[in-house]
């Protein structure tokens, strides 16, 4: 029964939403949007579940880490609180042999960040319009945290992408196989075609060889073989989505529903 009810709901909602895609008349016309709103409402409650899980996991890790650190400090005898403070950096950043208690300092930072943002946002601290204002209003503590801490951290993570693109390209472009060689040659033409060097390199070509002018060649690669490949993938994806959705709606695929009552 635990699986039958969700299966029936999935079948009814799936069928109704498919029908609604072809019937614009009220009440079908806005069913898709309404169901998205219902999902958002459920997601808000689930967010509490997520927040609770985050606090539980990191809280346990932090407490375990402190406990282990104190035990370590007590081992050698002497005044252990002082020893604890001196050895604190080693304990905090992976100096412990017990893997479960390792890096607990990061859990502390996570918890501190979580509660600071929650406090600033929930009570709208420093908000120019007080309780009436929007939580993201400039001048508020929440927005201040967001702009001066969260945004730079996010940008830093995003910036890593540039380095990873370089290392991944280096591996992918090594001409070990025929496919990799073609990839390397194509990438070279595209890169060159997007720079002034590409224009200068083949500027001398006569007009009847215009196709081989590197920027033109790069544009052709992007517009013809690349686009054709992308469209082939997109057709496959669309068909896969239809088949997957039908399997879910018809109850053929039910792994995501989890365990049945035993």
């Amino acid at each position, binding site marked *: 029964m635990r699986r039958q009810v969700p299966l029936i709901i999935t079948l009814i909602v799936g069928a109704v939403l498919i029908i609604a895609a072809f019937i614009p008349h009220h009440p079908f016309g806005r069913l898709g949007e309404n169901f998205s709103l219902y999902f958002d409402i459920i997601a808000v409650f689930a967010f509490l579940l997520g927040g609770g*899980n985050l606090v539980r996991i990191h809280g346990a890790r932090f407490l375990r880490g402190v406990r282990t650190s104190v035990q370590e400090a007590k081992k050698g005898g002497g005044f252990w609180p002082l020893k604890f403070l001196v050895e604190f950096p080693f304990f905090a950043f992976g100096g412990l042999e017990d893997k479960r208690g390792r890096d607990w300092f990061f859990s502390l930072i996570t918890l501190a960040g979580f509660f600071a943002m929650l406090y600033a946002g929930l009570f709208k601290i420093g908000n120019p319009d007080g309780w009436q204002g929007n939580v993201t209003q400039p001048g508020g503590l929440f927005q201040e945290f967001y702009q001066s801490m969260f945004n730079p951290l*996010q940008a830093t993570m995003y910036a890593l992408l540039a380095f990873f693109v370089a290392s991944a390209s280096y591996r992918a472009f090594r001409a070990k196989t025929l496919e990799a060689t073609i990839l390397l040659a194509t990438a070279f033409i595209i890169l060159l075609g997007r720079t002034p060097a590409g224009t200068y390199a083949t500027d001398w070509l006569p007009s009847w060889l215009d196709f081989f002018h590197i920027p033109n060649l790069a544009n052709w690669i992007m517009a013809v073989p690349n686009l054709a490949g992308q469209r082939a993938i997109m057709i496959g994806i669309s068909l896969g989505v239809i088949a997957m959705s039908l399997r879910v709606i018809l109850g053929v695929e039910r792994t995501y529903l989890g365990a049945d009552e035993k």
Partner: protein
Amino acid sequence: MNRADRLSSLLVALSPAILILALFPAFAIPQTTADTAAALVGPPQNVRVSDTKGDEGGSITVTWDLSPDDHGGADTATAIIGYEILRSESAAGPFQSVGFAPKGATRFADASTHDGVGYYYQVVASTAQGGAAAAPVGPVMSSAQWFNTNRTNVLVIGLLLSGSIIYYIASARRGKKLFIRRIAGLEAVQEAIGRATEMGRPILYIPGIQDMDDVQTVAGVTILGYVARTIAEYDTKIEVPTSRSIVMSTARETIKSAYIAAGRPDAYSDDAVHYVTDEQFGYVAAVDGIMVRDKPATCFYMGAFFAESLIMAETGNSIGAIQIAGTAMPAQLPFFVAACDYTLIGEELFAASAYLSNEPKQLGSLKGQDVGKSIAMLAIASGVILLTLHQVTRVEWFLRAGNWVKDLFLLN
């Protein structure tokens, strides 16, 4: 006083009035400039109004042919800058502006109408000095439709596809043997889990960063079920950091189910699946941290990914993990192909659960997809042939037929 003198006196007496009359147009700016513009540019032609097709009501579509002067415009003062659409409930007016379409446009949808009310429309070719108006047309009423005729093609193709998928599922249920091609990435799943078991290291499973309303996440969680069953049998550890709370709950249920199915419910722990954050790069930072600290032997990336794909896959590569990825995000596929050992490309992600389960019912749905591919290939081939024939022969019919094939696959 002779007759000429009298006429002269009369003219002198009337001169202020004549002067005022002569100068009057200079003060009556709107009327005069509109007339001037009307004289300099032609109004839009053949204005038509109709209820917008296939909508939920509240919209009327106005179409027109361009003003003959739409393509002119060296003289900026009298060049057409666009078309103003005016509306009234009476043919005599007054007309109110309801929108503006840019130069070159021939269509405007007025989405502010009330169903059942008759409206008259007037289209004005606007210039900097005024406008040239076409005659009002109407009345027309908006109404809601019970079927979106613009989507007839989608309905037909959808029915054909769904029918073939259901047919093959039914065939497979009856015991018909189906051939499914080998997918290298899925063949490697067992090997990857075995490697983690031998090395005594955990497996990291990332079900993408989207919520459960994304079909890619559903596919990712479904594959997780099959991976978890093998993991339960091998007694390997799995870690699933999620970026959505609902995904966390679903993944927990899925893994729990797999452990129960493998006869090892005692080995299951809720801590295997945990929530990190909804924020994209915060999530990546946490996942990269887990990778560097725990050094998982195998990393799975199955679901919807964006810019974080390469950051995670490259970190996984740097710790020497065997990596299997699957996504239907075309822009991220090259990154996964470059950084991972195996990549499920697009449809393979959706086929994975059927392939791994080896259940005839699920495999049947994959055969149904092949019918869709055949239709697509047939349409592409016929479109290419028809348009090539048009280029060679210049026969208009080939172009029309080619466009018809193209329109057949247009989504409205």
